[in-house]
């Protein structure tokens, strides 16, 4: 290369732009980065597509579905109509004549709320504690690590049962948080060790040299590396909350104010649905609802790695 080709006036510390970027451009590039590119990546992967479809379906049912359907009351239909017998009660009715499909649809919303609040709680607390501990060294790290260890060693289920019985929470959001109360320990510990190695990367030191604030370094240089892992954790903790809530309702530990899948299961079980063939649909459909949602989450979580991998992203721009 020839040195002469670079002239003083080309030198760019003074350059300013003569085009103005409009807000439409900004929106367009944001849409591109957060909607189009992920969309294109998903389309190439049928599992992600399926997972996304399932989860989106539940979201739709839990929001719009509730609004489209009349709530069901006792003696809406005959007692114990079997599945697929009449169009009025496609999944059948329970012994009190309530429509099972409607019960499921109305049960979706509190369950989703619980999962969402529990999942968000876990990743917020886990990420915050893990990254700050890993990045800060010294005293703060020691304190946060100790808290994490405590959270990890307390046995989860008994704690949740004790808290549930004493606090007797009713709002699904609170129940979700309660169920996730000590689920963040593993995530925090794992992130801490990841941050420890990312902190040594040269680009983090370069950012420090450029006087980038610690918050920004964490946000722009450290977190993106861990995003796939965090998202994966989000999905799996939502699954955890789902199972925990259904399980605890089933055990009758959680107070039930609203009908949800766990409550349905408990009622069906105590009504003898497991042993009587004519009642079997009563317990079967709530289980199916839980299983499909859980499969959807698994499928979706398997594709999170791709969404953030720059090598994959680059191919879809």
């Amino acid at each position: 290369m020839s040195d002469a080709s670079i002239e003083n006036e080309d030198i760019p510390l003074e350059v300013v732009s003569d085009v103005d970027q409009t807000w439409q451009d900004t929106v367009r590039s944001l849409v591109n980065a957060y909607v189009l590119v992920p969309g294109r990546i998903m389309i190439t992967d049928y599992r992600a597509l399926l997972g996304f479809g399932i989860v989106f379906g539940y979201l739709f049912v839990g929001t719009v579905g509730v609004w489209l359907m009349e709530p069901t009351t006792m003696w809406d239909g005959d007692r114990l109509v079997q599945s697929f017998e009449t169009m009025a009660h496609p999944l059948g009715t329970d012994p009190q004549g309530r429509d099972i499909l409607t019960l499921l649809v109305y049960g979706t919303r509190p369950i989703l709320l619980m999962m969402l609040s529990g999942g968000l709680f876990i990743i917020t607390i886990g990420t915050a504690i893990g990254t700050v501990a890993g990045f800060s060294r010294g005293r703060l790290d020691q304190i946060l690590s100790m808290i994490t260890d405590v959270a990890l060693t307390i046995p989860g289920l008994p704690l949740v049962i004790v808290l549930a019985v004493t606090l007797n929470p009713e709002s699904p959001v609170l129940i979700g948080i309660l169920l996730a109360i000590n689920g963040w320990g593993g995530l925090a510990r794992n992130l801490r060790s990841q941050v420890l190695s990312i902190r040594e990367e040269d680009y983090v030191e370069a950012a420090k040299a450029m006087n980038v604030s610690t918050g920004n370094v964490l946000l722009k240089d450290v977190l993106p590396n861990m995003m796939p892992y965090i998202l994966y954790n989000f999905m799996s903790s939502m699954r955890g909350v789902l199972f925990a809530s259904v399980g605890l309702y089933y055990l009758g530990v959680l107070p039930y104010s609203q009908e949800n899948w766990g409550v349905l299961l408990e009622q069906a079980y105590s009504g003898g649905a497991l042993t009587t063939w004519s009642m079997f649909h009563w317990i079967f459909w709530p289980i199916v609802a839980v299983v499909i949602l859980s499969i959807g989450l698994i499928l979706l979580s398997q594709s999170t790695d791709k969404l953030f991998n720059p090598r994959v992203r680059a191919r879809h721009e």
Partner: protein
Amino acid sequence: MSQQVVAQENILELRDVTVSFGMNRGVSKVLDDVSIDIHRGEILGVVGESGSGKSMLASALLDAVVDPGTVDGEVSYRTDSGETVDILDLEDEELRQLRWEEIAMVFQGAMSFFNPTMKIRGHFLETLKAHDQDVDEGMEHARELLTDLHLEPDRVFDTFPHELSGGMKQRALIALSLILEPNVLVMDEPTAALDLLMQRSILTLLDDLQEKYDLTIVFITHDLPLVKDLCDRIAVMYAFDVMEVFPAGDLSNSTHPYTRSLLNAVPNLTTSLDELRSIEGSAPDPVDIPSGCSYHPRCPLSTPECEQEDPPLEEIAPDQEVACWHHEKVDEELPLALETSDGGSAEVYEGNQSDEPVVVMDDIEVHFETDDGGLLSLFDDPEIVRAVDGVDLEIYENDVVAIVGESGCGKTTFGKTAVGLQEPTGGSVRYRGQDIWETKRGEGTGDRSYDEIRRALQIIHQDPGSSLNPNRKVSSILQVPMKSWQSDLDVEDRKARLLAMLEAAGMSPPEDYADRYPHQLSGGEKQRVALIRALLMNPDLILADEAVSALDVSMRVDMMDLMLTLQDLFDTSYLFISHNLTNARYLAGRAGGRIAVMYLGEIIEIGPAEEIVQNPQHPYTQALHWSTTDLDSNSEGEADESPIRAIDVPDPIDPPSGCRFHPRCPEAREVCATEKPSLDSGTDHCTACFREYSEDHPYWDSEPLGEETIGAHVGGESS
């Protein structure tokens, strides 16, 4: 064919060896019809840039190509008894015996070869047992090998691999590979990760080993000058084929345009700085090798004939083959720079250093406590690593100071202290008269804010793979510095500016580069982006920590040129850290800067770049100088004797008393072990060695500590 006659002395013959991988883009040929003979008892250097197929050649020699690659052709090996075996036809069990017992291999990454949980002794024992050898006799042999390689067998046997330094590990690995007394040793970049001085020392030892044990060595490397003195013949590879083979003694024997250009691109200590030329273009893709001569798109002598037909490898002199249609014209058209150079010094960007120091470091000390974290360490005093121990340095405006030294000498720590990224445990760092760390703590008296100081001191790292955040595009990476100190710029201005910078750094079209992720850039391009990022802060001083060492030889000059050009435009100073005197000379020499040589945390010699290179005073600097082979010395296949007495750098936890270099210094006398020479000052060129002191210094009357240097005693007498 004359093969019958020559065949007697060939221990290995490759005929039309091709290695190919099926990929979804097409068939990728990573070795393309290679034919070459390897003589018994010779050292053959195989030289090529990264991606030239040289490592694949090593794998093919042992039929060790990984799946799904396929090897075609013929590799015949002639045993001691005169039988010929075709390696590619062997069964797995026969192959296993052949490898190690007949042909041994040493790879670059010594660490990944050793099992980290097993002591070195275990590795030797296991190898002996696996090949049904007599263990006692084998271990005796192992001791001898280790001693030959300047390792203490008893100490080394009882250590775990991670406790050894890189150079020790590599030497232990060489001993391990020779334990079964093979005839052929294939080495793939065995020293590339090590310091130059260590590389040269190992090469010296190899030369002795080869003689003592009658080995045939195939030495694969990217560094032609390094192996020139060691090898008997050199084979140059380009685009997955051998371009030429020539006797190593005299580099002017080379007749292929590629070899010439390669040699002219390597910075060295003798060529005048103006003569260095990088090679235009880039190496071909294995899926799509150019038709005809694969070098024609980059060859200055290329003619239409070259594009049509692939020149065969033909013999033009004994031991010399070349694949080029126009090799007779090479001497005329592409003379070796080191032959034509008049030795005169290059044009330097002179006189632009001001007298005003930007950064002044005064008696800097950086001591780390090693903590092993174990319970036991509670009861011991923590061990102190003296990374930097009392160093003064002033860096002026538009200055270039190159710091040279082996790894572990504290040069990186010192550099980071200079730009305020490492807090010294003693002494002060001042930016334009104002103490950096006091200002950071808000105690300073100066009127500059810490932000301003922070902006003025920037860094470029060594490893291109880690210097850029893999998750952000170039354009967003380069906006960070502007966001940091020019908040008045809006996003379009920032973009316009970074595009202009990319263009200025020779990365065009800039829009295209700005939109890439780091993994879509080559190593050299990543380093350019890192340089631009640093420059966008408009700094006064940039620490370039081995910023070119990880790049291919032909790209280093490019990168350094860019640094110099931009220095001229931006008025920055560089603190350039390197283990390689030639790179230091290139950068500091062109800018009329200084070279400082560091050893175990101290600067032991400092002076104007050309002075240090042409007239090194300190015995250690002389050793470093020795390690960067002169391209034009015509010694034949003999690595000359090393000017140091011990290969390994002493432990910085417990540095030697007196002059820290005395255990390795060939000139050391008793006084050196007790008294410490200080860096004489007053002149431009200062040296910390008693030999620079006046005639009446006690040094001259004291007894020498011993003069045996490396390579002097390993020879035949001990066998």
